[in-house]
């Protein structure tokens, strides 16, 4: 393929061509926090889980909370991107890649949390050697592996034409991009195969994504523990996952837009459209939470009520009501009001609030049920130790570092899809709308 002129889209290569001091400062500080995490982890490896705040009966804490939280965030990318692609939502073009990268990267940290939580991480391969398929944890292993594979393919496929562009425009890293471009020349045949593959993957990825968080919820729901053993948990977790996922995309987009001056590509309309989706999920979250808590309260079984009351008026009450405010009150107020929804800061504040709230929600699912065992037990209050907090900080930092590095190697806004939008979709959309109207040609009758 001859080197074509990128035109104004050339600026999308800017972050790859030039790396300023700001980025190195960012990368350095993220790496420093990551190294601190390595130190914390070595402490845990030497002394075992006694360096955490875990105890009897709170056997699971921050690590499992983060596992659920990170896997939840992973629903940002692939799922949203797949739905928008299949729905022919034209505004998706500049945001899909930024979203898909979140999925692939954050899944590693989700799985990392489980390994971190093991008493014997050296024996983790027993899960393959002696796998017990009646265990929801094994379902998790299967679902997450499938999701990681599918979403990596789904990230890579739409990257191929862009990698070819890099191969032709970046002579100094040509060898690297040449391997990854796997011979892409942009012929009509190649393009047709690629479009088909992307569409196929988009269909495959959706059920896998739904299964992943359903299965994560089943780790809890399949036990008989009070306020875990709930049929609503599957959909409740999926809704929460997409909720925190969309919020994560908005935050990532706002940072990319500001850092790389991509206001022309990540426009207000992209934020506002996502914000509308976020508003729907704010309401869905409230609906599910309300249904779950009302059912427990109305049934009033004593073992369930002891967990319920510990959340609403007991020792977890400050966290619980913060969750209600950050998951519902703040985002609902900001997103239902068009004056704040149609500003970037309004969307970002709502999203940050949701991330805090959703993290608290995960914590409030894991810890209170374990803190209130059915039989009397002298229980100590769980508070995460410095090791657990350090690992949390390190995981978030290394995730951000890897995300930053991705934007330095590949265009975070899909160049060819923007071009395609400009060159073909405007006409296609006009034709599509005409076909909806009386007198238009009905493509589906043919």
């Amino acid at each position: 393929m001859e080197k074509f002129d990128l035109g104004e889209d050339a600026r999308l290569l800017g972050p790859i061509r030039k790396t300023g001091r700001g980025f190195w400062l960012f990368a350095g500080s993220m790496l420093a926090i990551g190294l601190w995490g390595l130190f914390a982890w070595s402490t845990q490896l030497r002394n075992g889980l006694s360096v955490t705040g875990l105890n009897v009966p709170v056997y699971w804490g921050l690590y499992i909370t983060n596992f659920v939280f990170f896997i939840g965030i992973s629903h940002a990318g692939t799922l949203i991107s797949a739905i928008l692609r299949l729905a022919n939502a034209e505004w998706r073009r500049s945001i899909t890649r930024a979203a898909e990268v979140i999925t692939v990267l954050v899944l590693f940290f989700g799985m990392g949390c489980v390994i971190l939580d093991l008493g014997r991480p050296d024996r983790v391969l027993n899960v393959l050697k002696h796998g017990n398929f009646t265990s929801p944890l094994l379902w998790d292993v299967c679902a997450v592996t499938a999701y990681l594979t599918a979403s990596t393919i789904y990230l890579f496929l739409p990257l191929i034409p862009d990698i070819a562009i890099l191969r032709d425009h970046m002579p100094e890293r040509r060898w690297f991009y040449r391997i990854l471009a796997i011979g892409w020349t942009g012929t009509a045949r190649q393009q047709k195969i690629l479009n088909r593959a992307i569409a196929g993957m988009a269909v495959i990825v959706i059920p896998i994504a739904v299964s992943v968080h359903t299965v994560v919820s089943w780790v809890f729901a399949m036990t008989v523990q009070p306020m875990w053993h709930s049929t609503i948990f599957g959909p409740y977790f999926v809704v929460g996952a997409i909720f925190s996922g969309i919020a994560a995309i908005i935050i990532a987009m706002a940072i990319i837009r500001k850092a790389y001056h991509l206001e022309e590509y990540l426009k207000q309309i992209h934020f506002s459209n996502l914000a509308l989706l976020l508003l729907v999920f704010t309401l869905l979250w409230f609906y599910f939470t309300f249904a779950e808590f009302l059912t427990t309260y109305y049934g009033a079984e004593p073992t369930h009520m002891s967990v319920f009351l510990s959340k609403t008026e007991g020792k977890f009450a400050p966290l619980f009501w913060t969750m209600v405010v950050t998951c519902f009150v703040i985002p609902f107020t900001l997103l239902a009001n068009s004056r704040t929804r149609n500003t970037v800061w309004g969307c970002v504040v709502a999203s940050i609030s949701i991330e805090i709230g959703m993290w608290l929600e995960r914590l409030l699912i894991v810890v209170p049920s374990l803190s209130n065992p059915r039989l009397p037990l002298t229980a100590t209050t769980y508070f995460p130790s410095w090791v657990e907090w350090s690992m949390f900080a390190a995981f978030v930092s290394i995730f951000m570092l890897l995300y930053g590095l991705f934007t330095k190697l590949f265009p975070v806004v899909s160049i060819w899809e923007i071009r395609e939008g400009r060159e073909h979709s405007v006409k296609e959309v006009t034709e599509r709308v005409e076909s909806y109207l009386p007198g238009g040609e009905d493509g589906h009758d043919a």
Partner: protein
Amino acid sequence: MARWSMVIDLDRCTGCQACVVACQVENNVPPAGADQAAAGRTISWMRLAPFQNGEHGTRPDLKLVPIPCMHCDHPPCIKVCPVKATQIGEEGLVAQVYPRCIGCRYCTTACPYTVRQFNWRRPEWPQPMERGLSPDVSVRPRGVVEKCSFCHHRLQRAKDKVSAENRPLREGDYVPACVESCPAEAMVFGDLDDPRSNVTRLSQSPRAFRLLEELGTEPKVIYLSKGEWGGEV
């Protein structure tokens, strides 16, 4: 095939904790130490749980209930283990495979009785206690789950003994350390499938009940008590 079962008579139990200590010594259960105990990380295969009986405001009737592993016929812990590190044997004993356990603690959270224990750190005994460790029971490494085994090693020993004496296993040949140590004779151990055994007879008593029966776990630890509080536990 035997189905081993334990009966604990709460009307006889004095809460003296002899069973707790006997279990600790018999099974090489490490002492937690003051700092770990304060952090809520003691290990005990047999614990005494305080139950309050009767209405609030009336004469309080506090019972200390010894709680070992229930060795359920339908154990919730076995299903959830991702690596088959906990299994139920032919004679109904729920066993833990220490060398395979990955320490995910799913079983400890799934057990409604909270009887499963985790080794938060490497077990240590103050000298000279280390010299008194039982050679029949393996010392568990850091990071794995352990729990009451109904003194499974004693069953092995009893089987060896009766096969040497060329006779069948009789009631009393196999008794866990807690049962043996009980000064109030509040605990009875035996085969629930043997219609003439003491545990079978006692399990049919009107005083008999099991903990959290409504969960369908079918525990093989059976309690006896005159009070009506069995049902509300």
